[in-house]
């Protein structure tokens, strides 16, 4: 028995030396250990033919043999795996340096991307998104914003009008030339404190290097008690630092004139290209970004807000303008020509 066990072990050991892969190893193990007529089973089955007194030691021999064989297989398996992993790189190498071309990423339009970004930034300061109609009434677009009927902006040269009847108390329908009507619509619906940001499409009958008949603006409106000019500057300063992703950028305000704010300002941002040294893009280191001001008491009155109790600030900037400045796009009209070679850069 012992001899036979020894022979089996030697034979297995010899065969294992020739096995080079896991599949053959598993097959061989099955043939040797697990099958009903496996080599080992045949050995084990001989126990029952032995005399009773030899059976005990034969049983020990069989068990020992099984253990030895199992260890041999485990050892061989480990050796094969070690080899397999050690040579993995050479055997299973695949070139991954080239991206497949089946799927490409699309692009958000830069104006839309900025639209969301503007809303997100002002959200951090508690401004809520608001919107209003693009086909507006004269009342909301001009009259309630303290612009008299004779105001130049309401001329046909500056504003698109709709072929439709005038409506009492609302006037002529038109395409809004700015997002400011939403100031009044917001005040009609909400009581102070108000903080809204209003991005949206606006229209003016102009088309040249710096104008497209359709463009986007965003309006900001804050109404509360005792609002200061400093808070307006601080708010815009926060915005430009976030939007231009540069803590060094800052705003300055200069006196300007708008009918719906008093005082009114032109807002400049320190040039993002030259950092106030002066360059081809800016004016002495400053870039004009848009208008702002303290809400005119007459506008508050039109909005149904007590101007003796509350005041506030508002601003209205062109989204295309800040996009063009931030990304250095040479011609604003390119944004609307469906020029994919431009759009795909964003």
């Amino acid at each position, binding site marked *: 028995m012992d001899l036979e066990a020894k022979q089996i072990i030697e034979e297995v050991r010899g065969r294992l030396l020739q096995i080079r892969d896991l599949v053959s190893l598993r097959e061989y193990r099955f043939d040797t250990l697990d099958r009903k007529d496996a080599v080992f089973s045949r050995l084990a089955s001989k126990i029952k033919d032995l005399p009773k007194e030899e059976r005990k030691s034969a049983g020990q021999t069989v068990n020992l043999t099984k253990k030895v064989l199992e260890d041999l297989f485990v050892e061989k398996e480990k050796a094969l795996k070690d080899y397999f992993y050690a040579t993995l790189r050479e055997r299973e190498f695949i070139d991954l340096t080239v991206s497949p071309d089946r799927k490409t990423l699309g692009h958000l339009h830069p104006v839309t991307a900025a639209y*969301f970004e503007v809303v997100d930034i002002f959200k951090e*300061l508690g401004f809520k998104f608001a919107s209003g109609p693009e086909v507006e009434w004269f009342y909301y677009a001009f009259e309630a914003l303290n612009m008299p009927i004779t105001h130049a902006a309401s001329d046909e040269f500056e504003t698109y009008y709709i072929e439709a009847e005038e409506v009492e108390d609302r006037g002529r329908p038109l395409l809004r030339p700015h997002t400011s009507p939403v100031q009044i619509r917001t005040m009609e619906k909400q009581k102070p*404190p108000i903080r809204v940001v209003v991005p949206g499409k606006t229209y003016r009958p102009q088309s040249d290097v710096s104008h497209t008949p359709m463009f986007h603006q965003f309006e900001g409106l804050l109404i509360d008690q005792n609002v200061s000019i400093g808070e307006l*500057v601080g708010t815009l300063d926060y915005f430009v630092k976030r939007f231009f992703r540069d803590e060094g950028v800052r705003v300055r305000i200069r006196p300007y004139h708008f009918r719906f704010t008093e005082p009114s300002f032109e807002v400049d941002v320190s040039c993002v290209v030259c950092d106030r040294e002066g360059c081809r893009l800016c004016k002495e280191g400053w870039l004009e970004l848009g208008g702002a001001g303290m809400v005119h008491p007459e506008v508050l009155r039109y909005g149904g807000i007590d101007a003796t109790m509350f005041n506030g600030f508002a601003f209205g900037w062109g989204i295309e303008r800040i996009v063009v400045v931030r990304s250095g796009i040479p011609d604003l009209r390119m944004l609307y020509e469906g020029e994919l070679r431009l759009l795909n850069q964003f």
Partner: protein
Amino acid sequence: MYVSLNWLAEYVNLEGVAVADLRSRMSSAGLSVEREERVGERLDDIVIGRILRKEMHPNSDHLWVCEVTIGQNEPLQIVTGAQNIKAGDIVPVVQSGGVLPDRTRIEATVLRGVHSNGMMCSAKELGIGEDHSGILILDANAKVGEYFAKYYGFPDVVFDVEITPNRGDLLSMVGVAREVSVLLNRQLKMPKLKFFGRGNFEEENVLAVRIEDKKGCDRFSAVALTGDFSVATPFYIQQRLIRAGMRPISLLVDISNYVMLELGQPSHAYDARKVFGNEFVVRRGYFGEEFEALDGTKLELDPHMLVVADEQKVLGLAGIMGGKYSGVGKDTKTVLLEAAHFDGVLVRRTTMRTNLRSEASSRFEKKVDPALTLVALERCYELLSQIAGAAASSRLVDENHVAYDPKTVTLRANKLKIYLGKDFALNYVESVLNNLGFETVDSTHAGEHGGWHITVEVPSWRLFDISIEEDLIEEVARIYGYENIQPSMPKGRMPARAQDSKLELKKGVLIGLVVLGWSEVLTYSFNSKEQVELSGYELERAVKVRNALSEDQRYLRLSLLPNLLQLVASNRRMNEELKLFECSRVYHQRLYANLPEELVNEELEKEYLSLVYSNRVAGVVEQLEDVSETLKLVFGLMRKNYRLIQRREVIESFSSFKMFHPGRVVAVVLDERPVGLFGQIHPRVVEYLRMDGVVVAAEIDADLSEMFKSEVPVFKNFSTFPRTEESLTFLAGKDVLVGPVIERLSFVDERVCEVKLKDKYVRGAEEMCSITLKLVYQKMDGVVGQDEAAEIRGKLMKVLKDEFGFGVVAES
């Protein structure tokens, strides 16, 4: 407005003020200096000389030999080709060895045998004008031998100042000087005037004015002056006109322009001989009346336009431009000078309609101080009497209907503090306001609520601009300097939550599309008539723009597809695959919306999402599937129940169905509501856009923002037991719609957890197709065994047979 600092210095002392400082002070006070130009630099070698003699060059028929004194003992001999000079003229001279501003060195030369020891210069050569047709002739009384630059105050700096529309008063040197004087805290010196006496004039020399439209013109002042108007305009005045961007013409025109630039009040000079009668009439134009302006523009007038006329003809378009045939010239002996106050709106509308603009009209548009008409005439009188010895030859007429009440405004300390974030002393505020021309009416150091208040009267030149307390706050703030205001974050209460879940969801969907390879474009909201019709709508439903820039942009769109398809057409050649989308509004004509009048028109604008797909190398099914898959993922993002149904009446409920291939279009249904169409674009439309092949599109014809509602996902228990899968094949007609079958089978038994199309095989000859569905069963409390599966399958087969009439041919 161009502001020459040399000229400005006449009204306010600029000594010791650095140009850069002045520029930044002005800009921060609201007089934004856009550009700055230096004029008359490097004139160190130029001196003032007088031509003593001028003789023909002995060896030339176009050269002259001049003897020019520059104050030294020995006159210079200079050879010149200039034809505009004569002996006695005062001219700028550079001696040989000297250098011109352009760094050209003038050498002593011999020209055709005659020595020349210098050069007389043109305005252009000196860099102070454009004229190079001849030698610059200076004032007869200029001091010979003086350095030219020193005598005439060169170099000069010119600021280009942007004036806001509310500050018409700053379209004048005096107006700018007033601001600068306050900024520098220096005295403002007003120009000298000459008043008209009562005088005794003959009857025929009585001027009269009749204003027919007192709203269009509320003041009209005029006077006749007689003098020697043939003399040259003084050099400094010519120079100042040039600096201001105007062209010197002749004395009377120049003085009128000069005074306009100085005071901001336009005036006009008519030759008395060319005015019929002695009455000016200010009236509206007649229909068809003809008028030729000074610049040669011929106009047909109408009653929207205001004119100044005599008894017979139109003398000028009020506030804009004089007529060609009433102007003054060198031979004018008596001039009728007019200064009037015209309505800015009327002037603006006329300039818009006629395209005729002038320095005068731009001033009236921004409003002119009505108190100035007389002052302007008195200033002209002063200058013309000095220069041309002019005397009044008529009594001054001043038809004045100006009806502005004196206006007072009060400013309170606490309000100023709220805006500027800082306490201001009353005496500082008062001195700022007084210096700007606001007279104190009343002031108290401590009012009822603590703090001072001050009441001031608004000066005539700010009447249109200042009316409320905030206006005065601005006056103080801009002089104090906005840069001195401390920025801070908003201090007040935070309003309700700022989050907008609709917008968040929209952003998510758009970014989802981007990840799926779609590129967003933005196209104009406008459509042409053809595009509206192409999109399947009747023209009457579209909003029509009255003053469109072109017919291409006459209507507001009712569908995003026409513009998107246009983009496909123009980009297709360059791109094998195009996946474009747009999320924008469409606009419905109010009349067709069946909405109560009190609803705002917001309801008539809906935000659509449209996709167009074109792939030159993919098959039609592949392309349709790509878009279909995108829709599935997008609606998945929105967590919407979504179905595609191909029922004719549902599809045709969308006007845009006409844009789609009738056999390859489907309605998208979200939560039981049809919201749009998806399918292949009709070949007719493709052909119309001059394309060929397949274009696939989807338009979600419903307000997206309405559909975006953010719902909190709620946990549903799931089975932990393995799924049982099998498949079922049935025969159906060739044009079977499998979608409804799948949908129906999904609801037959709750253990059916998935029904999917596995295969669809068309048997050509039989006009039939066999459809294989993959079925998955699962339940909460155990494995669905063979018997149970058979039971479910039985139910499904019964539904297929009873409700659809399909016979099952195989099961596995």
